[in-house]
């Protein structure tokens, strides 16, 4: 009897010691340092990698499978006319500085995003909001100007997180959120350190500390991973270096997909790209499988429309324009275009610079002469994006579910199609999820048929980490590097 007790007791001691022995801090490598840590004041993805889910939280959030889940809102109801959302807010939530979270914070956050001096990078997401009201501190009622079927998804973006009035001005350098981690320090140019929030309202984080280390040079990043200086590199950018990791028994490589869509964008307002046959000819002339092989060592799935496999409602349209240089030449002939010459602007990322070389070679097979112009990103934004002064460019559209960009009156590739606009409008008015998904399918088909841009492939997410690290994301439906579930296995 005594012996059993003794054995039991020692079991407990061992059990309680074991977690203490496991490592509970992690160093995560990241390519770029964020410009500030306020996701409501900048579009850069690195801000979201550090803050999304870890530091800041919104009423709702996107989880790894791409669906929207409750976060600071426990539940919600939508009125029959789809214009009023009543959120039931979680109780007992506090910001890292002790400020309580209630409806006044929701009202402040949303009104700040739509105000005249708002510098929110996604101000458009909030545009449908007419007003936010607080019938009681635990309820937030948001009224829309018109039904917006993607409203909940939009409020799950990093740009729609909850911000306390007292800390809003300093979030760029000293972020204060409600998440399971709080800000500890930022050694500029080197790292950002987050520590566990002991007073978190939900399931506490398993790690006590997360260090995001910034390593922009691909070889330096690979060396840091191999030497164990970083435990995980969730978004490794140089696919050609991945084979070194695969042969290392301590490392694990996980390749998933992101919402980033790499496209050869064409200026639809410029001749001859205003002719759908010319755009289709270019699509036929590009072998996207080989392109993915050449730019991302074969990681990354080809796409046939402006939609990635990680986005809900994806349909496979890869076979719309199979690789066929002869067909391309024939289409060009039909369009009456002879000796087509085009300039492709290439921003710095490898998908553009390396992809540009490969595409130029493929297009020359179809008799199209290509001039490649490497361009810096700031200049790309100015010349291509702002002034639409280009023939073609290779660019990744990182935003999730961004079918709306083809329905805009002014956007850099100048696609103007009344049918698409009408279709998009009926999508925003759709009341049930089934109708929404059906319309998302129709929108993808319409884009594939019109081919305003040549859709190439979805940006892969190449993650490499220590085999003992568990709980990191394989896919990335929204820009995020969620550390809330991460832990070390013994």
């Amino acid at each position: 009897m005594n012996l059993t007790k003794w054995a039991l007791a020692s079991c407990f001691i061992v059990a309680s010691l074991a977690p203490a022995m496991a490592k509970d801090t992690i160093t995560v490598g990241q390519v770029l340092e964020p410009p500030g840590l306020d996701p409501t004041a900048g579009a850069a993805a690195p801000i979201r990698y550090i803050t999304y889910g870890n530091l800041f939280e919104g009423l709702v959030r996107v989880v790894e499978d791409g669906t929207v889940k409750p976060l600071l809102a426990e539940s919600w109801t939508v009125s029959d006319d789809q214009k009023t959302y009543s959120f039931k807010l979680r109780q007992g939530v506090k910001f890292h500085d002790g400020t309580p979270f209630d409806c006044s914070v929701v009202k402040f956050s949303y009104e700040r995003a739509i105000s005249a001096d708002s510098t929110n990078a996604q101000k458009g997401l909030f545009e449908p909001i007419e007003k936010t009201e607080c019938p009681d501190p635990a309820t937030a009622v948001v009224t829309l100007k018109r039904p917006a079927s993607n409203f909940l998804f939009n409020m799950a973006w990093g740009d729609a997180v909850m911000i306390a009035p007292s800390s809003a001005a300093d979030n760029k350098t000293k972020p204060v959120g409600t998440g399971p981690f709080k800000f500890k320090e930022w050694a500029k140019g080197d790292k950002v350190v987050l520590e566990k929030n002991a007073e978190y309202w939900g399931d506490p984080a398993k790690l006590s500390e997360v260090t995001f280390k910034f390593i922009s040079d691909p070889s330096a990043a690979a060396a840091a991973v191999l030497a164990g200086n970083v435990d995980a590199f969730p978004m490794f950018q140089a696919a050609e270096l991945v084979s070194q990791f695969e042969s290392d028994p301590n490392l694990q490589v996980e390749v998933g997909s992101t919402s980033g869509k790499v496209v050869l964008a064409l200026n639809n307002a410029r001749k001859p790209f205003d002719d759908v046959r010319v755009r289709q000819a270019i699509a036929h002339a590009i072998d996207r499988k080989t392109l993915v092989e050449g730019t991302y060592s074969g990681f990354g799935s080809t796409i046939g429309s402006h939609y990635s496999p990680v986005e809900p409602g994806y349909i496979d349209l890869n076979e719309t324009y199979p690789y066929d240089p002869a067909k391309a030449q024939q289409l060009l002939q039909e369009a009456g275009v002879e000796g087509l010459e085009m300039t492709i602007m290439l921003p710095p990322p490898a998908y553009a610079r390396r992809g540009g070389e490969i595409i130029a070679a493929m297009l020359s097979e179809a008799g199209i002469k290509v001039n490649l112009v490497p361009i810096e990103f700031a200049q790309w934004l100015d010349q291509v994006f702002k002034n639409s002064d280009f023939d073609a460019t290779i660019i990744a559209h990182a935003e999730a579910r961004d079918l709306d960009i083809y329905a805009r009156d002014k956007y850099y590739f100048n696609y103007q199609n009344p049918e698409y606009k009408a279709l998009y409008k009926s999508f925003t008015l759709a009341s049930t999820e089934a109708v929404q998904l059906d319309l998302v399918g129709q929108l993808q088909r319409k884009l594939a048929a019109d081919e305003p841009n040549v859709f190439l492939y979805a940006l892969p997410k190449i993650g490499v980490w220590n085999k003992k690290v568990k709980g990191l994301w394989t896919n990335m439906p929204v820009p995020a590097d969620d550390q809330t579930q991460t832990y070390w296995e013994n």
Partner: protein
Amino acid sequence: MISFVGGRLVSLILTTLVASVIVFLLMQVLPGDPAVLMLGLNADADAIAALHRQLGLDQPIWIRYLHWIGGFVVGDFGTSLTYSVPIRELLGPRILVTLPLALLSMAISVVVAIAIGVYAAANRGKAADTIVMGVAQVGVAVPNFWLALLFILLFALKLAWFPASGFSGWQDGIWIGLRSLILPALALGLPLAAILGRVTRSAVIETLGEDFIRTARAKGLTRAGALWKHAVPNALIPVVTIIGLQFSFLLAGTIIIENVFNLPGIGRLVFQAIAQRDLVTVQTLVTLLAASVITINFLVDLVYGYLDPRLSRGGH
């Protein structure tokens, strides 16, 4: 001597001011709007306008210049557009990386260069000279970033003597901090040493042929004595000139090497600020770098005056 120094000082200040105007104007014609860059592809026009107001980019160009240069003179460099902290706060920790790195590379370069240069000159025409200068010739041709990658492969990944990248700071002791700087300093310093070594060799060979060396030997000095007491000091003027010139290469080199080794220094800050169109930070850093190159040249002039008093007396 005083008028020599005073004249140089005035030209130092004027050159820096001219450099600041050029740098500022270049920033203005550089395509790319920092606000558009920060707010990305989906930004509203009025959000961009609001950010312009917030960053003060809606003011006329000359007001912005005067505002910036006025602060610059008293050491208030303004606020970084992307980090939104004072640039001075960004500089402090980074100088503690870049300055030790630059000094260490310079020391490596000078010690190695003088050693191989004098050795090769003393053994002129022999096999030792050919071998040392052959290696130096390779060193001149090797780019520093490539050398850096080889060093990482060998000393960090294979032998694990040094960390592959990053800088852990000085708080854990000098040796811990220095360990992360040794490979970058070697990668930066050795190619410079190769060039400097060749210059040293030819300068020493030239002075060895002078009459005063023959006189010194005739007085009974040994070969080594004549070499170190008379030939080397007199060969130093061209060597110091090259060191001064190399300093600007060294600063440019830190931009590349800090990126390869992922060191949070000034060079990486410049690179990052240019890519992010952090205009105020770029113009401040480039002006500071220009000022330091100008200052080094000023110091080199002073050293000339010391090494060869004829120069400062003649005001040449």
